């Protein structure tokens, strides 16, 4: 099937303006007749629901948490990028665009990225007006910090809780619209399936997580704002509830899943301490502004207290390998450098999977008070988890799965190949290519929700008769039956193994074979093992309790069942992409110095996978990527 | 007028509104308690001093002063009690299922017993009024308790107090009541600044200390009168 990304014609810098000009308008009276279903209430979901309601659309918004304010966007620490150039350090829309395309290792769609850079400035204005308490200078102007992958200071932040503050801002906008009656909110409600009618997404099936009731909701368009799939690895920095169900079910209804192998490994997480561990905690990347990453030069030093290792015996790996970016090298590069050092037997801490992040020099230079002001809450968090003080000894960090760049394929209007199904934020694939730069996820979620979808959705709706499909349609009945049967199936299985034990095994397998570094042999092995595990899950899982009440085990079972299927596509995509780029590193494809080796000749495309009914044999559709503005080059941060 | 009344009823119906009334009436009662103590301490300045003071209160504004004060104080007490009882009922209703374990980390015992110290003080006030103001169950209205002061026949407050506290049960009840008042004030004094929106991080510790000092002063001052009469035989 040919993929039309509907990129507007004209020069790059004019595309979005032109597209806004050309986009359809719906008159205010008619907007009220359209119902839009928004699944997810993170940055993308809340901002989209609020803005669409402001415009006059009727919105229903769903989230599995007990309140829309708890979506996992809330955990983003570091900041949000915007090309404001308040620092007068040479930033511009074009530079942010350039950095993002390059940071994505030339696997993002240029037009989308340019639009993202353009609207980034509006996001900051919007958030400030909502009362988001960004950090300020004494004169009352907004403060900025620098972040990985950029040589300008363009990141806006609210202490170490930027995601929280932006989400609370979007949540407040959502509340305003709920109070005004434009949005109906469904908390503790999980989406189980997308309903398509004549090939268009016209509704969803949900389960009320309190009463267990499975219900159908019809609408004129569906927006999936359901985040990434990082929890396929079991251990990740994602919240426990993050899942792939919404996007995976949409995929099984026909939506293409693009580039699932692009997973981001965040370099600065707290290392794993034992097999009971349920999640990994990220320490904001902003720490790398002042922290220096090192490991002992000599293997015999790894057991020594770090303070006893003299300067000359320390290997500052990032500064040595990437002198111009140093400790601020992009995430994928920093992560791999840490892995290499540990593979080399120079890792520190339990299990040898860790590197030091040292603040001694910064504390000496700026004083402990300044450092506490900058990172106090992060240092506290570290101490709570490890029992160690980062003021006195270096932190130990190790990479962990953090973000997923892949997601449902969308065109320039953020609509998937399934008409009516729009995908926003981390759930789509479009803006970050093979690697996302720090402080860009918040930017994308809000750009999609506040500024892109409110314009582009009309291009679909204008061709639709509002309310033409209701939940009485036979397709809804069919979908309801399928979902009810699946729920009953889990409860009836009565096997021997808990849902978590399967999830843990799947996660370990995927991390091992399809994590920071991948190769053909490992992926082939994983592809053999995943279907076996899935089969065992079907026959040997135990889900206690009943389906018509609050039952967390049942919720997990549905999510893990989807991860089991999704994992196979993830590995297939990784196997197909015979190159290394961004977060996808195939050990077969590297330069002699260990740098990722892209293959622009054969793989300069977005891989959009189509479900065929056979999980092991999806069809590959390719969207070729062309680079008009930023010329394909080896991504170098040396 | 009715718009203002509506606003007032909404104000009273709200949690913060009631609390502000409790704080304001508490402030009035604190002032009263202090004035009352200063007056009472005149007993140590001799018979004439306190009798003169008593007479002054009785005759201020041609005798209406004492009634204005009485009505005002009664109103303050009434509002203070009705509002706190209502708040306490709401508070109990706000947690129908109690905890198996519930640890207080920072709050004082006094703060947890405000309603009980308050209601005991109410019982005491009623007794106190019957004792000295209405003068029931004693001979304080008889001529034996009148005295000549600068040619006028006035109440011999001095003798009333001395005789009153010579009876052990009354003294003991007074002491208990003063201890509870002390406890009540130790939380109530600084608390009212918080409710009225005045406390700051810097002033709060001062209000706290001032509250303890004030509560202590009220207790020590009043107890000194009772103890010196009852145990040391002052004035007898």
């Amino acid at each position, binding site marked *: 099937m040919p993929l039309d990304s509907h990129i507007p014609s004209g020069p790059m810098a004019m595309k979005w303006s032109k597209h806004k000009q050309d986009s359809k308008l719906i008159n205010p009276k008619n907007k009220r007749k359209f119902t839009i279903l928004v699944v997810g209430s993170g940055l993308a979901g809340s901002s989209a629901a609020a803005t669409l309601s402001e415009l006059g659309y009727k919105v229903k918004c769903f989230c599995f948490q007990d309140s829309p304010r*708890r979506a996992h966007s809330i955990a983003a620490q570091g900041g949000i990028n915007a090309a404001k150039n308040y620092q007068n350090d040479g930033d511009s829309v074009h530079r942010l665009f350039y950095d993002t395309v390059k940071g994505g290792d030339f696997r993002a769609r240029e037009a989308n990225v340019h639009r993202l850079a353009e609207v980034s400035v509006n996001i900051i204005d919007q958030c400030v007006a909502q009362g988001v308490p960004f950090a300020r200078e004494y004169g009352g102007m907004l403060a900025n910090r620098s972040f990985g992958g950029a040589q300008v200071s363009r990141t806006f932040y609210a202490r170490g809780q930027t995601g929280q503050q932006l989400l609370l801002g979007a949540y407040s906008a959502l509340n305003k619209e709920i109070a005004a009656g434009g949005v109906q909110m469904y908390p503790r409600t999980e989406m189980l399936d997308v309903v398509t009618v004549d090939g268009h997404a016209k509704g969803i099936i949900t389960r009320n997580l309190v009463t267990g009731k499975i219900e159908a909701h019809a609408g004129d368009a569906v927006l999936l704002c359901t985040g990434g799939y990082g929890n396929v690895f079991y251990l990740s920095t994602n919240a426990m509830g993050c899942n792939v169900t919404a996007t995976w079910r949409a995929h099984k209804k026909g939506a293409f899943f693009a580039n699932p192998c692009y997973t981001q490994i965040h370099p600065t997480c707290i290392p794993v301490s034992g097999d*009971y561990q349920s999640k990994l905690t990220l320490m904001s990347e902003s720490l790398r502004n002042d922290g220096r990453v090192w490991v002992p030069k000599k293997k015999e030093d790894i057991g020594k207290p770090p303070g006893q290792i003299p300067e000359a015996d320390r290997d500052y790996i990032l500064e040595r390998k990437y002198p111009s970016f140093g400790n601020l090298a992009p995430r994928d590069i920093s992560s791999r450098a840490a892995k290499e050092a540990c593979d080399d037997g120079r890792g520190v801490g339990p299990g040898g999977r860790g590197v030091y992040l040292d603040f001694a020099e910064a504390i000496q230079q700026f004083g402990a008070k300044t450092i506490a002001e900058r990172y106090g809450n992060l240092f506290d968090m570290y101490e709570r988890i490890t029992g160690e003080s980062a003021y006195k000894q270096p932190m130990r960090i190790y990479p962990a799965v953090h973000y997923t760049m892949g997601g449902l394929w969308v065109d320039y209007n953020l609509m998937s190949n399934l008409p009516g199904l729009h995908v926003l934020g981390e759930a789509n694939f479009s803006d970050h290519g093979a690697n996302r730069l720090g402080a860009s996820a918040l930017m994308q979620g809000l750009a999609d929700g506040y500024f892109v979808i409110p314009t582009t959705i009309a291009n679909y709706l204008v061709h639709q008769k509002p309310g033409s499909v209701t939940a009485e349609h036979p397709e809804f009945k069919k979908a309801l039956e399928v979902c009810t049967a699946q729920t009953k199936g889990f409860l009836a299985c009565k096997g021997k193994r808990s849902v978590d034990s399967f999830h843990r095994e799947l996660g370990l397998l995927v991390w091992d074979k399809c994590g920071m570094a991948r190769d053909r042999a490992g992926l082939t092995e994983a592809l053999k093992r995943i279907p076996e595990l899935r089969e065992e899950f079907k026959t040997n899982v135990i889900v206690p309790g009943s389906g018509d009440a609050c039952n967390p085990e049942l919720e997990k079972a549905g999510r893990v069942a989807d991860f089991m299927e999704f994992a196979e596509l993830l590995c297939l995509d990784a196997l197909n992409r015979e190159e290394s780029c961004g977060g996808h590193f195939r050990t077969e494809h590297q330069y002699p110095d260990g740098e990722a080796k892209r293959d622009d000749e054969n793989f300069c495309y977005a891989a959009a996978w189509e479900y065929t009914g056979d999980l092991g044999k999806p069809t590959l559709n390719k969207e070729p990527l062309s680079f008009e503005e930023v010329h394909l080059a080896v991504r170098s941060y040396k | 007028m009715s718009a203002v009344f509506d606003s007032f009823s909404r104000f009273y119906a709200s949690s913060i509104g009631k609390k502000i009334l409790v704080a304001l009436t508490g402030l009035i009662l604190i002032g009263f308690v202090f004035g009352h103590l200063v007056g009472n301490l005149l007993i140590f300045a001799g018979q004439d001093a306190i009798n003169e003071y008593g007479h002054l209160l009785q005759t201020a504004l041609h005798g209406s002063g004492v009634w204005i004060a009485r009505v005002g104080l009664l109103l303050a007490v009434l509002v203070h009690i009705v509002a706190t009882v209502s708040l306490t009922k709401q*508070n109990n209703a706000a947690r129908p299922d109690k905890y198996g374990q519930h640890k*207080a980390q920072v709050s004082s015992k006094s703060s947890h017993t405000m309603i009980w110290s308050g209601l005991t003080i109410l019982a005491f006030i009623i007794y106190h009024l019957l004792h000295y103001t209405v003068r029931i169950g004693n001979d304080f209205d008889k001529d034996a308790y009148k005295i000549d002061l600068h040619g006028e026949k006035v109440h011999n407050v001095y003798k009333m107090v001395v005789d009153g506290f010579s009876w052990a049960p009354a003294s003991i009840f007074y002491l208990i009541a003063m201890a509870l008042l002390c406890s009540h004030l130790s939380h109530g004094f600084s608390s009212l600044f918080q409710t009225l929106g005045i406390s700051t991080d810097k002033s709060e510790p001062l209000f706290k200390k001032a509250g303890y000092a004030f509560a202590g002063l009220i207790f020590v001052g009043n107890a000194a009168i009772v103890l010196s009469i009852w145990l040391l035989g002052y004035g007898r």
Partner: protein
Amino acid sequence: MSQLNLHLKVWRQNAGQPGHFQDIEAPDIPDHASFLEMMDIVNERLIAKGQDPVAFDHDCREGICGMCSMQINGVPHGPEKATTTCQLHMRKFRTGDTIWIEPFRAKAFPVIKDLVVDRSAFDRIQRAGGFITVRTGSPQDANALPIGKEVADAAMDAAACIGCGACVAACKNASAMLFVSAKAGQLNTLPQGKPEKDRRTLGMVRQMDKEGFGNCTNQYECEAACPKEISVRWITKLNRDYAVAIVKEALGNSPKVAGGGD
């Protein structure tokens, strides 16, 4: 790393039915595990024995989403200061300890199951005024309105609230004043929030009262239990803002009365 043997007293309840404490033995708990990981281990064992696992709310497990709750040994989020349950680690307990685990209890937080409670009252309070009415795309440049660092920092102090409900759980009156005051206070402090200040204050306080929370008696247990150390000075400010707003409403010219939310 050492192992702990613990005795748990866990509250079990189905919505609308009376609950009870269940004694659960929890041997061999690694002391590096978090409290919720301990609960995971306990649940795995219950499932293996064919019993119903304990339902509890949790999500981010890094102390920011505010989903986890639990009254642990009589204190919301357990004994550590400035810590959510998910950040509490078992090294803070000793082998042989008895641990009481209960839901946050308040009439306004009805139990859904076991330790899971319904905190949607907080959302309704927010809807009654916890926002600045600004349309997407309409604002001026972000730097057009200078806001002093001190003001921005103060607003951030209040904005750090994660809406977990520990303040309600800790208060002997189940009062929500710390939550409401932090939410209203953040916006009432900022110049952007000034135009709607009175309306917001009245609306949120009235909705809070409607939800059946208790009243503040200035004991500051909320502040002591707050995982984000929100100061009770925000309550002082809310009291003040409320008094001003009510006087303006009573005596001013404004014809409109701020109502509660839905």
